């Protein structure tokens, strides 16, 4: 019951989706299963939110170090959730002028829109932007032209980096007419359209085979790691 039924559910769902792809009559099954999948994914977000709530409350009640930040997380979570679920500040649209509930939840001017526009987006993009510093410093420490492979990687990265900056254009202007094809931007284009394309294709084919074999292992019950180790 605890392990066999989940195995059967996984196998049935997976094979139904595979079969539905090949039989036109069963195509709608695949579409329904996809919709169910998306519904469960949305529920997983609720589960994640519930877990976050529980962990932060636990931290606050135990007065663990940094519990003040847990309170900030909790407040941000609850306030944003309230704004979004109750569509606070959402104005009705011309399609349904008397029903504000019918308007999009993130309509411009709403409270959730404000949270996304002035909190979520700046924070998310700055976090990713910060990686520029760390990638550069990690590269500085890790990239050493110790052997042929490392040298190739280093030189390619250097060409592509310069090829996408204004320096590429300046260097091209200095180069004589006959050597224009050796400018950084042209070399970047060759690298991207020939070598990178070939390499990415080989990797993509490898990934596809890997995904297909892993999926088969899951569906046939060979890989049961998702069920966990214990009975509970």
């Amino acid at each position, binding site marked *: 019951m605890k392990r066999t039924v989940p195995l059967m559910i996984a196998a049935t769902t997976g094979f139904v989706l595979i079969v539905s792809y090949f039989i036109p009559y069963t195509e709608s099954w695949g579409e329904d299963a996809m919709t169910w999948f998306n519904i469960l994914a949305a529920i997983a977000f609720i589960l994640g939110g519930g877990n976050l709530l529980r962990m932060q409350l636990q931290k606050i009640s135990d007065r663990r170090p940094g519990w003040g930040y847990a309170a900030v997380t909790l407040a941000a979570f609850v*306030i944003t959730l309230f704004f979004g679920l109750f569509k606070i500040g959402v104005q009705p649209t011309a399609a349904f002028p008397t029903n504000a509930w019918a308007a999009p939840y993130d309509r411009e001017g709403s409270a959730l829109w404000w949270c996304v526009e002035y909190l*979520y987006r700046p924070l998310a993009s700055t*976090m990713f*932007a910060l990686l520029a510093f760390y990638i550069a410093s990690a590269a500085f420490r890790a990239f050493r032209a110790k052997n042929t492979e490392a040298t190739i990687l280093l030189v390619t990265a250097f060409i592509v980096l310069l090829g996408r900056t204004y320096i590429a254009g300046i260097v091209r202007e200095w180069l004589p007419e006959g050597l224009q094809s050796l400018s950084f931007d042209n070399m970047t284009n060759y690298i991207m359209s020939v070598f990178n394309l070939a390499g990415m294709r080989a990797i993509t084919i490898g990934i*596809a085979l890997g995904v297909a074999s892993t999926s*088969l292992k899951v569906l046939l019950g060979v890989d049961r790691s998702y069920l966990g180790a214990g009975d509970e």
Partner: protein
Amino acid sequence: MQRETLFWLGLMLVGGVLLGGRAILVGNGRQYVERVTTTADVAATEGAAAQAVELTDYVNIPARERDAPGVRVSFARTVGIWVAAFCTLGIMSFLLGETPPYKLVESVFVGVSAAYWMVVGFWSEIVQNLLSHLVPGLMRATLLPGLSEKTVPNYWYVVPLVLSVMMLWRLAPKGAWIARWPLAFFIGATAGIRLVSYLEADFVQQISSTILPLVVFGADGSFDVWASIKNTLIVSGVLLGLVYFFFSVPHKGVVGGLAKGGVWLLMITFGASFGYTVMGRIALLADRLEFLFDDWLWLIDPTLQRAGM
């Protein structure tokens, strides 16, 4: 107080005074809006006559038009710009270490993003797909007035509802194994979808795109040297890469040599990917700096928002 702390405190104070002074004198970081009113007609229904409803929207106006009639400062959006600037600087302060401003904005980020994705999931999946199939009449009368009249209850959707409840069971102190059933559905569906889609898009399609003519002739019938070299390099490159990934044969002798070529090709790919990733991150950083210097501090004006001011 330590000398270093005193230095930073002094620096922040001077910065704050300068910012405040600039905000008062120049008015930077303000967002101007204009109120736009439209009228929408509401059709007559049983017991209610047709009527016209006034709808109000606020649109952003460039600061150069701040003196135009009907344009005013939006308090909410102005506060938003200052909050976004604080958040940006807070995250950037991580470069100095795990500072209190960083920890504060990080906590806000965790809370807001978790809630935001929950809201997205609720409105776009639970309401739009689950409830609209289970109780279409109720949804049409309340949250989804645009729902087609042809939509009738589909009780098969009780299955995802039950699976959802089982998934949430994980939050209960006992019976966590119940959540394995929806998890199994999730895993099975992912495996089924991925198996077909990857084989179709990433296996068959990539092989099909790699089957290229090695000798290319132009439209006028002449031999195209560069296109021929390019196609040859692509085909041989893919084959070399695949030889490297083929571990069933030891990488010795001829196979070893080919695999070595595959490694070199992969190194070029990784180098190019690295260069692209760095450039992508730098573009994001430039975007954040543009926000700080343009939208917030009004020190630069690349889009001529304040031309003539």
